[in-house]
């Protein structure tokens, strides 16, 4: 028997949703300051409207649903899944008002793509975007990368037990520090220190390469946010190709890799434990998968003979691959070149890389390295079991911050989430094919959306069917939250309708 949710459930969910809505609105103050600094009047009004809507909705929700009760697991998960939809709807308001989107749905697509750190875009005429709107596009990736709920709540909540439930709901099941709020503040600290260093490195590189000072540092900050949070937006329509600079590309590769590694590992590096970098199962798996997928891509590109000599092949092939593997989505080639210029073998290498993703408790999407590592260990254990005598006790261990014995429940969880991702990739590809796109193109774009990558082979366009836009939005949402909170929301809705 399914139990119908109580009124209290709705009130608690509404109350926290209201607080998060106000939190999202507060973040719009940053682009307003930017707009005032650059004397951009129209964008200032756009963001005032955005703040107005978020404050009004937030105040109404917190007043109507006022409660001092804490969240349980179900409520926490539902708050998380709904928060991402609410943040998308509110974050899209200033984007839509900018006049660079053909419809509000297109603006929502970009907002979800930003919050989920995907990087697919339907924006028109990016080269004439205002500084404020451009900053907002990149800032939402920074907020989404840290986790919308935790970011919004850490603004005005000192600490409460419900925070951990929402932290888990946002696909972060590992605590760096014992307290979740302290963990989220550590993540903020790391991100802000890297933001300053990354902006300086990219800004100085831009300056030395002929950019105006204000553009160099503004682009530096935006590109850092997009790279560290493995987002993939860029201030110009050509993405990273705009800069025509190898140093710039190299710095972004370093930032993308930093963004793709576990925050727990960042903490160990922070405290001087560099050995962890080489012993950790995620880093080892990451290294192996990069090598394998790059070999596939490089063989494909070599067969084509398009990039000669080898250094050119490495620069183009490795950049797109590492961008896909870390889930960033930066491109130094045009979207149409993937289909028109690359062969199926090289595309397969990139699709595999996108499908695998980076580390858990990082800003990347996709299956993730810890799960791949665990599955590989389980395969190894089973092979050893077959090879050794029946009475032999086979034990498998792996190192992830500490030595852990491999258990069946870990393997089961890893396989379950991996299966969900594979089904999500396949579902998006089927929808793409339904609308007449070829198989490889559909699979490429679907994997990119569901794994929160952002590389595009050209399907993502304002002219694509509305249903496909919705499909990619749902894929980005589900892929970022790693399913559990969305399954809980679905269960809650079914219980609300069918429950007794």
């Amino acid at each position, binding site marked *: 028997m399914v139990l119908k949710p109580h009124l209290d459930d709705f009130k608690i969910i509404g109350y926290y949703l209201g607080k998060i809505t106000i939190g999202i609105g507060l973040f719009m103050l940053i682009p307003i300051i930017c707009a005032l600094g650059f004397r951009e009047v129209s964008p200032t009004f756009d963001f*005032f409207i955005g703040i*107005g809507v978020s404050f009004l909705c937030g105040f109404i929700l917190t007043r109507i649903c006022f409660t001092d009760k804490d969240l349980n697991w179900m409520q926490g998960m539902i708050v998380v899944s709904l928060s991402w939809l609410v943040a998308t709807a509110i974050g899209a308001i200033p984007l839509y008002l900018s006049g660079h989107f053909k419809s509000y749905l297109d603006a929502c697509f970009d907002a979800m793509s930003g919050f989920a750190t995907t990087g697919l875009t339907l924006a028109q005429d990016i*080269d004439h975007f205002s500084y404020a709107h451009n900053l907002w596009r990149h800032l939402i990736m920074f907020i989404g990368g840290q986790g919308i709920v935790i970011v919004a709540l850490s603004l005005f909540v000192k600490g409460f037990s419900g925070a951990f439930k929402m932290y888990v709901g946002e696909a972060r099941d590992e605590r760096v520090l014992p307290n979740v709020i302290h963990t989220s503040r550590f993540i903020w600290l790391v991100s802000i220190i890297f933001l300053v260093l990354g902006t300086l490195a990219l800004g100085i590189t831009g300056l030395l*390469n002929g950019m105006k000072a204000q553009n160099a540092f503004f682009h530096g900050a935006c590109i850092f946010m997009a790279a560290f949070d493995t987002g993939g937006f860029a201030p*110009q329509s050509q993405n990273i190709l705009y800069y*025509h600079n190898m140093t710039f590309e190299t710095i972004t590769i370093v930032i993308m890799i930093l963004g793709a590694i576990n925050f727990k590992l960042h903490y160990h590096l922070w405290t001087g434990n560099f050995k962890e970098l080489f012993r950790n199962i995620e880093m080892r798996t990451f290294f192996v998968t990069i090598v394998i997928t790059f070999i596939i891509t490089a063989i494909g590109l070599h067969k084509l003979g398009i990039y000669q000599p080898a250094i050119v092949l490495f620069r183009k092939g490795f950049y797109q691959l590492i961008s896909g593997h870390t889930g960033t989505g930066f491109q*130094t080639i045009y979207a149409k070149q993937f289909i028109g210029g690359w062969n199926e073998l090289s595309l397969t290498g990139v699709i595999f890389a996108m499908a695998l993703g980076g580390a858990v408790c990082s800003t990347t999407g996709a299956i993730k390295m810890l799960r791949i590592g665990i599955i590989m260990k389980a395969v190894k254990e089973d092979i050893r079991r077959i090879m050794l005598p029946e009475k032999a006790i086979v034990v498998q261990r792996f190192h992830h911050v500490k030595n852990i014995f491999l258990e069946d429940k870990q393997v089961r969880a890893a396989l379950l989430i991996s299966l969900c991702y594979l089904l999500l990739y396949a579902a998006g590809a089927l929808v793409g094919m339904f609308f007449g796109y070829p198989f490889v193109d559909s699979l490429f774009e679907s994997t990119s959306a569901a794994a929160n990558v952002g590389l595009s082979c050209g399907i993502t366009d304002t002219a694509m069917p509305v249903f496909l836009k919705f499909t990619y939005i749902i894929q980005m949402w589900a892929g970022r939250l790693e399913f559990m909170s969305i399954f809980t929301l679905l269960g809650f809705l079914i219980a609300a309708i069918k429950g007794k």
Partner: protein
Amino acid sequence: MKQLKNYELRIMNCRKNKIIFIFPFVFFIWSLICFSETISSTELINSAKQYDGEEIDYKGEVIGDVMVRGRFAWINVNDGKNAIGIWLPQPLVKEISYAGSYKAKGDIVEVKGKFNRACIEHGGDLDIHAVSLQIVQKGENVDEVISPRKIKVAIAFLIICLTLTVIYFIKLGYGNRS
């Protein structure tokens, strides 16, 4: 004699008319040869293999930064669909006075040069190595157009927000006192 004169006159008029008709035609052909048709960015990207290494004409708006690199420079030119990187001698960029941004419409330029599908010199970039640049239309600063409705809505929301914030802080004050 008179008839002969008339005949000559008619022939002369006919020649005159022919010249009037032929001159624009010759001029048209000449202009086609000298300023061959520009190719769109979409065509260049989609049929990159076909145009690889060809001398082409490309027209569009200069956007972003003019990035001087020693004796050469990079500009990015957007034809309304895509922007393509143009590598050109530094003296040529001196003619560019506006680059497209939020507050400016960039110069519309026509460049003539070699198209590269994967330029060896520039790490495999799809680019054009230009030998000439012509300003087709000067750019200009763009004034912001703000709709009066947007201003009214923003002010209304601002008032609501301020009121709600004041109410929130008053309630917070009462709560703390109690």
